[in-house]
């Protein structure tokens, strides 16, 4: 455990406090009044005021924030204005879907990116290297919602092989996870290649080669472990954009995850849900980056020193 990681851990509560306050205040300045939406278009001003009061929206912002933080620390994020369900329960019921989608997307990305990047680096400037670099730059340029629509047109509308939308069976997972995997595939692939090329020019690789180590063993045992830390860092840094991609992917495929919940909440001006989902997203980004740092310090002895 080095000082940088401990420092980050100590900063975590402070960052979450600042983020939660910023989100809380910002969300309360949203245009549109949820009380009026709930009370209905024909409600009198008195009825709207009563809803305001029952939601606690007529209290000063600092007082509301204090109440929110006390609840949040006890695991209570408030009640959704739209569905009347506790926000914690809403998030808990949507989170597994996003987690499943994200994990399967990263699994696909790793299965393509690591071997692909490895092969490209081993035969640098060869035919596969050129093809691989071409594929990855195209993957990074394709908008995921377009790719999603093309998949839906081909596999659901034309061929009728896969369910168009929703999450009914395991086959529903295929198209969304492939869509979400495009960007990390490109990034992991390119980073693996770049990192491997840097490692392959090192002295210990030349020594291993001189000693007569076979190509497979040289590549998998000597080079790859040393090339992995930058790849892990890139996976952590990239999580934010994958969460962004999940918002779009879930919306297109009607996948009932957190992104879907967020878009619905923005549409309904559902303050507590917007806050809850944003905090969960920020917390996951910070935690995953922290986990990446810890993992690197485990596999890389150089990173263990301060």
């Amino acid at each position, binding site marked *: 455990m080095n000082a940088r990681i401990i420092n980050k851990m100590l900063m975590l509560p402070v960052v979450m406090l600042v983020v939660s306050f910023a989100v809380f205040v910002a969300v309360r*300045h949203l245009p549109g009044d949820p009380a009026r939406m709930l009370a209905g278009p024909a409600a009198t001003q008195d009825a709207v005021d009563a809803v305001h009061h029952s939601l606690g929206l007529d209290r000063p912002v600092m007082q509301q924030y204090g109440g929110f933080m006390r609840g949040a620390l006890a695991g209570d994020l408030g009640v959704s204005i739209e569905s009347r369900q506790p926000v914690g329960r809403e998030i808990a019921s949507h989170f597994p879907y996003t987690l499943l989608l994200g994990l399967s997307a990263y699994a696909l990305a790793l299965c393509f990116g690591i071997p692909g990047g490895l092969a490209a680096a081993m035969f640098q400037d060869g035919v596969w290297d050129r093809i691989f670099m071409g594929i990855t730059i195209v993957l990074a*340029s394709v908008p995921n919602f*377009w790719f999603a*629509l093309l998949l839906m047109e081909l596999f659901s509308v034309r061929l009728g092989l896969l369910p168009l939308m929703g999450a009914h069976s395991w086959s529903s997972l295929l198209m969304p996870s492939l869509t979400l995997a495009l960007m990390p595939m490109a990034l992991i692939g390119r980073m693996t290649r770049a990192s491997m090329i840097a490692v392959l020019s090192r002295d210990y690789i030349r020594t291993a080669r001189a000693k007569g180590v076979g190509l497979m063993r040289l590549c998998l045992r000597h080079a790859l472990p040393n090339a992995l830390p930058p790849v892990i860092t890139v996976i952590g840094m990239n999580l*934010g954009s994958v969460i962004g991609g999940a918002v*779009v992917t879930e919306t*297109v495929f009607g996948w009932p995850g957190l992104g879907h919940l967020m878009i619905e909440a923005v549409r309904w001006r559902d303050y507590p849900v917007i806050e809850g989902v944003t905090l969960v997203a*920020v917390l996951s980004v910070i935690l995953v980056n922290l986990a990446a740092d810890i993992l690197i310090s485990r596999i890389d002895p150089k990173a263990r020193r301060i």
Partner: protein
Amino acid sequence: MTVPFRALASRLPLSLLVGMVLTTFLVVGALVAPLISPADPLSQDLYATFQPMSWGHPFGTDAFGRDVFSRIVYGTRYSLAEVCISVLVSCVAGTLAGMLAGLVGGYVEQAIMWVVDIVFAFPGIVLALLILSLLGPGFINMLLAISLFSIPVYARLAQNLTHTLQRTEYVEAARTLGAGTWRILYVHIMRNALGPILVQSTLTAGSVILTASSLSFLGLGVAPATPEWGAMMSDGRNYLGIDILPSLFPGLAITIAVLGFNLLGEGVRKVMEK
């Protein structure tokens, strides 16, 4: 003796040449949009909806009988505006903040980099969604949101560059001669940091188009009828199973534009590294 053009072109990386061709194509398309589009991008013809590809409608027509090709050609203007405005705003703001942090140091640096780190902790689109729900949907608000979450990248890059450049002999010489902070920033640091920052801007341009079209696709960007590529796909998505053409071509246009900027960025980086 002047170097023949072909010799020069053969020395440049392929990615740079292809990127230059694609982005030039985009700029020319935006400039001559009224000349090459066969129809008004907004005019509807409810008797000619979902037309197949033909000479009159090269990419067919959409659910309201609007010519898809004309809409895509006009859409290049929106994409270029997205890139120019967002990249300019985030690059200027981020670079200034990062350089100031690097030059002044101490508490100012800590405070600036702390804010940058907090903005960086937000997943891009989630921050944009928050800002858009705050300001309301719209083209300018969307560009503001995108600019804001792109600032940290430039701020970090500028801070690092400033730290490196500050240790160079010419900056120390200038300081010994009594040059002030602003003069060092403007004359010595900004001009030398321009290269890497330009490369970063080109690399960001592609992701700006991707994010902007995603937000428009989600209905939070431009107004519904606007011929913006993401918004066109948001329309087209409702008619999946009836006709794929109105969503196929806008997506292809986004891919080509983003690919152009990505290749250009990679090419410029390769040239700078040599």
